[in-house]
């Protein structure tokens, strides 16, 4: 059995799977039930001055017959009183001393308020604080949430308010609604944060009801942009995670969030630099029970590879992600599509995808089921292998075409030539 326990910025947990701050960490009942199911930690739903919510609040993007490939919400932070929340947090921490309990906080930009609130949170015995600088709806219009996360100076300032008062680790939760995630990351470092978590939800409008022309979700006929999450956002989260992990100016532990539903997703986040993981949509969809498959799957994955500890894989795949300029150019290296005719079922999806949507290098052959790749014309874009419904039918074969040369190397070579 692999060791799944983690020490994330000094916060210890029996496994890396934490519930993200949201409707599923609103009460002690939920968090304790989740811990009983096997979750390693939980980030309590954001406490702040209690708000009043609207109804309805959630919208789903369904795809291919599956529900909730993406989920959006216009729910705000906790609508329960601070006292009530803190009392319950204290009770949970007393009963579950070895699980990570993080408290998400959102307050106005006033250092005195932050000082007082941080102390009150610490008094519960909570293991850490997460600053919600990411919530993109409702609170942002009131000067909190993502409007803080979108302005590096605000991020740094408010992070400092919290860090200066705190004796427990402060995690800054970043909004993805920025052009370069490294800017708020570096601002958090400057403010003294001990760790980052990302991503929060993405600005979104889920859709329009084609019968009524009302927005989805709608509140008595009106809607508003909401925060988007779920499996659909995973690639965005992985990009932001890896770019922060690879940024030398952000030497902080990173907690990965965004579309984690299976142990496979979890392993990818870990490999790209996440030292802990937060899950929300998947547990909202299927319930806390999914954590058993997450921990079991991750454990089996590590065991099968003889890797003793989950922390051993953190960030191991991140160094391979970097600048496009450091990729080998196609005259140096490329892949070429190879269709295995014995596996081909004759759907011709590769043919039409290549002909209409790529580089016209697959042709159909009279009397044969399988189309044929004109290998000399294939640019190795992968599209055919992506649309092919048969696993292993289209293989992308690597071809060494010349000496290693990237754009950066090419530019340097050409500069040398022109100077010479």
């Amino acid at each position, binding site marked *: 059995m692999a060791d799944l326990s983690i020490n994330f910025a000094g916060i210890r947990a029996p496994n890396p799977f934490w519930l993200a701050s949201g409707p599923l960490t609103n009460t002690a009942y939920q968090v304790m039930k989740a811990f009983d199911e096997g979750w390693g930690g939980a980030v309590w739903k954001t406490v702040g001055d209690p708000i009043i919510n609207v109804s309805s609040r959630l919208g789903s993007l369904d795809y*291919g017959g599956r529900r909730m490939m993406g989920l959006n919400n216009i729910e705000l932070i906790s609508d329960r009183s601070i006292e009530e929340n803190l009392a319950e947090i204290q009770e949970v921490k007393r009963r579950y001393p070895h699980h990570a309990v993080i408290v998400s906080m959102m307050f106005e930009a006033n250092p005195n308020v932050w000082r007082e609130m941080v102390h009150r949170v610490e008094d519960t015995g909570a293991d850490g604080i997460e600053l919600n600088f990411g919530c993109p709806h409702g609170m942002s219009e009131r000067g909190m949430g993502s409007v803080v996360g979108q302005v590096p100076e605000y991020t740094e300032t408010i992070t400092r308010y919290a860090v200066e008062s705190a004796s427990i680790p402060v995690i800054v939760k970043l909004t993805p609604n920025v052009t370069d995630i490294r800017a708020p990351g570096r601002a958090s470092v400057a403010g003294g944060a001990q760790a980052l978590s990302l991503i929060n939800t993405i600005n979104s409008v889920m859709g329009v009801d084609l019968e009524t022309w009302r927005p989805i979700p709608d509140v008595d006929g009106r809607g508003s942009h909401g925060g988007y999450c779920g499996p659909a956002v995973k690639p965005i989260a992985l990009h932001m995670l890896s770019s922060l992990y690879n940024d030398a100016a952000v030497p902080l532990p990173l907690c990965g969030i965004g579309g984690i539903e299976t142990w496979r997703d979890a392993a990818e986040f870990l490999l790209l630099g996440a030292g802990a993981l937060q899950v929300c949509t998947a547990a909202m969809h299927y319930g806390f029970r999914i954590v058993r498959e997450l921990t079991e799957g991750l454990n089996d994955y590590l065991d099968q590879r003889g890797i003793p500890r989950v922390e051993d894989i953190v960030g191991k795949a991140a160094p391979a992600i970097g600048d496009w300029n450091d990729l080998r150019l196609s005259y140096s290296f490329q892949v070429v599509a190879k269709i295995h005719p014995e596996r081909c*079922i*004759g*759907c*011709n*999806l590769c043919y*039409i995808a290549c002909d209409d949507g790529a580089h016209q290098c697959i042709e*159909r052959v009279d009397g044969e089921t399988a189309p044929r790749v004109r290998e000399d014309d294939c640019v190795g874009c992968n599209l055919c292998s992506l649309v092919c419904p*048969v696993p292993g039918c289209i293989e992308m074969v690597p071809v060494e075409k010349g000496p290693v040369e990237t754009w950066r190397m090419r530019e340097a070579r050409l500069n040398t030539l022109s100077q010479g």
Partner: protein
Amino acid sequence: MAVKLEPHPNFAEVVPPFTAREAEEEALRCYYCYNAPCTKACPTNIDIPRFIHQITTGNLLASARTILDANILGATCARICPTEALCEGHCVRAHESRPVSIGRLQRVAMDFAMDHGVPTLPPRPQQGSGRVAIIGAGPAGLGAASELLRLGYTVDIFDRREEGGGLDTYGIVSYREPVAVSLFEVDLVRRLGATFHFGEEVDHTRLQALKSQYDAVVVAIGLGKVPRLGIPGEDLPGVFDALDLIEATKVGDLSTVTVGPRVAVIGAGNTAVDAATCAKRLGAEEVTIIYRRGEEAMSAYQYEYEFAKQDGIHYRWWSQPLAVVGHDRVEGLILQRTTVDGDVGSRRARVRPIEGSEWTMPVDTVIRAIGQEKPVDLWVALGAQVDHGRVVVNPETYETTVAGVYVIGDCLARPGEATVVQAVEDGKRAARAIHQTLSRTPV
């Protein structure tokens, strides 16, 4: 007598429609192949991936339009096409799991059109003008009419029956296809502008007259009665023509159709299965299909055979009837064991009786299901060239050797099983050939 729209519960449609959820799940299984094998396997070339994709987008009206654009009898074909040999038999998903249930998905779209509204079918881009008479309002005639109307022609359809649809209305057991489905399709062609003349038998004299009144005449009269067995006793009460029996279950009062407790059906094609399962639903206790060859040579589709077995129909292979016996009604059938010279899987191998193997099977009803008579007399009277009892037509245009007279559908008596889908395609092709001829030499 009028056809019955509401069948007796015993004759209610066997295959249930997909629920909305089943339809969505099944439609999502389609890979949306390009140049799809299913479409190529469909005689009418329905753009199957497109109509299925339209189901997944919730546009059932467009889905129905895609189907009807290629096949005006899409609702019938959704139910009775031998899909295992055609579209579904060529589905690429058969390689890895099971084929998409194309027939039942087609029915989803066609049921929508029947229940919620028919899509308009756009006229064909090249328009012609002229008048065409079609003899026979069955699948082939309706197929030709639909195409001609969309090409801009005036179409009169003559049929000896009270209703259109031909075999679909009178000859397909209603637990496979309710009568209402067939009449819906007749109505589709009426909406396209056809004028129907029911109750009009067209003999060769009338045909000659129509030939002079119209720019082209299309003959789509189907086949005739089941041939006689040519054995003693077959005029005894209790001997039926299978098609008459099936028709009786669709027209008039079911209580007038009676079979005895023990029924023998002679022949092992699809009509034999229909007659046998009809007899069962009419109350027969023991129904036996008798065939002079083996299982390998029967012409019934596999799913028909399975259906018969599920219905508890018995099969007696390698036996042929020598005589029907009884005093004033059928009491038994004298059978003789048989064998064939050569390939047991071939329906051409010569059948050889086994001398001395005769025995009597006690039965109360005998049903003949050994094929249908070809309308040779009409072809001869018309002066068209005939070969082995089949009228000779140009395989591209369906024109006979008599200029301006086209023959399509089952009455061509092609080898192999006749299908509705092929009849519709015959009609489309003949219509296009007529259009080509008439638009080249304007009247």
